[in-house]
């Protein structure tokens, strides 16, 4: 099993790699029980598998980043997306983001930050650290659908790159191996994708509307 495997996909015979709608497994992190319930439902309705945890520490435990074997080490529980609240006691969402991006195993997992506060410097800080997107709370169904589309599109693009650069027998399962995608020696490389299209942010002040 490839380390850092993000998604298993089957390559249909006949060539062209299409995403046959594999379920995303999302790890949702929020200290509010109300918000956990809502985000879980939003994600389930959007056909995602969901695991919710109440803190950054628990999230790291789940991933196995605390040094122990995490639940997500099991093949079926591989996490495809992490959605985390920003303001949490103990480890903040930002701290969690940093830890994930520092990890060679997990840095390829997209991380989306949620916050009730529309603070520009906060948003910038998170994006700079590698967050995929930033959602303003309260989170709505349209937000989750958008994120899911974004993630699925990025995954499809990654796999297109892989299928060209790696010769694989048709019909075999394709494992996403981060090591064979564009090298990520710095955070500013192409794994961040084009800023305007993938970093659309929900911002009440519409400061970023030129990028949309």
């Amino acid at each position: 099993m490839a380390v850092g495997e993000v998604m298993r996909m089957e390559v249909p015979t006949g060539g062209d790699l299409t995403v046959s709608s594999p379920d995303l497994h999302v790890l949702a992190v929020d200290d509010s029980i109300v918000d956990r319930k809502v985000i879980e439902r939003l994600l389930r309705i959007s056909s995602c598998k969901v695991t919710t945890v109440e803190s950054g520490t628990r999230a790291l435990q789940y991933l196995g980043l605390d040094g122990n074997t995490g639940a997500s080490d099991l093949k079926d529980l591989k996490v495809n997306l992490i959605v985390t609240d920003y303001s949490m006691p103990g480890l903040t969402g930002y701290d969690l983001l940093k830890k994930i991006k520092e990890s060679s195993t997990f840095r390829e997992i997209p991380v989306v930050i949620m916050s009730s506060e529309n603070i520009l410097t906060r948003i910038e800080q998170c994006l700079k650290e590698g967050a995929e997107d930033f959602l303003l709370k309260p989170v709505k169904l349209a937000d989750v659908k958008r994120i899911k589309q974004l993630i699925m599109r990025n995954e499809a693009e990654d796999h297109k790159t892989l299928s060209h650069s790696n010769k694989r027998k048709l019909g075999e399962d394709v494992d996403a191996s981060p090591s064979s995608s564009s090298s990520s020696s710095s955070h500013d490389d192409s794994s961040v994708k084009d800023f305007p299209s993938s970093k659309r942010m929900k911002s009440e002040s519409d400061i970023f509307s030129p990028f949309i």
Partner: protein
Amino acid sequence: MNTVVAQLQRQFQDYLVSLYQQGFLDNQFTELRKLQDEGTPDFVAEVVSLFFDDCSKLINSMSRSLERPENVDFKQVDSGVHQLKGSSSSVGARRVKNVCISFKECCDVQNREGCLRCLQQVDYEYKMLKTKLQDLFNLEQQIVQAGGAIPQVNIN
């Protein structure tokens, strides 16, 4: 046509609209209703139930922090208000959320009297909303028991 069902549906619709008009609920409540279907008919009730439990818990702990005038833990109160504001926002509890905004301002300037007033107000508002929503859910239940469907209500 089953007039009992139609009557109940009308009652439900009018009641729900009035809750929005009187400012008890905002658009986020509409968003929550979208997430409910025949397979999960109790979703909204469950979420608001968690919210009301949260309110009760947070109000109690903030009350303790505000108790002694010479020793108020404003940091703890601020944290409580922040959480309350967040969860009220997530369920569309508009009046509760608005009190939290004033509450936070009192906290920021360490105004204990103001905080106590806001605490009382937030307690009143959440309990009021709880009663209103209970009436709403009862109507819903009656509709279902009478064999009808819960109306989609459009709030402008």
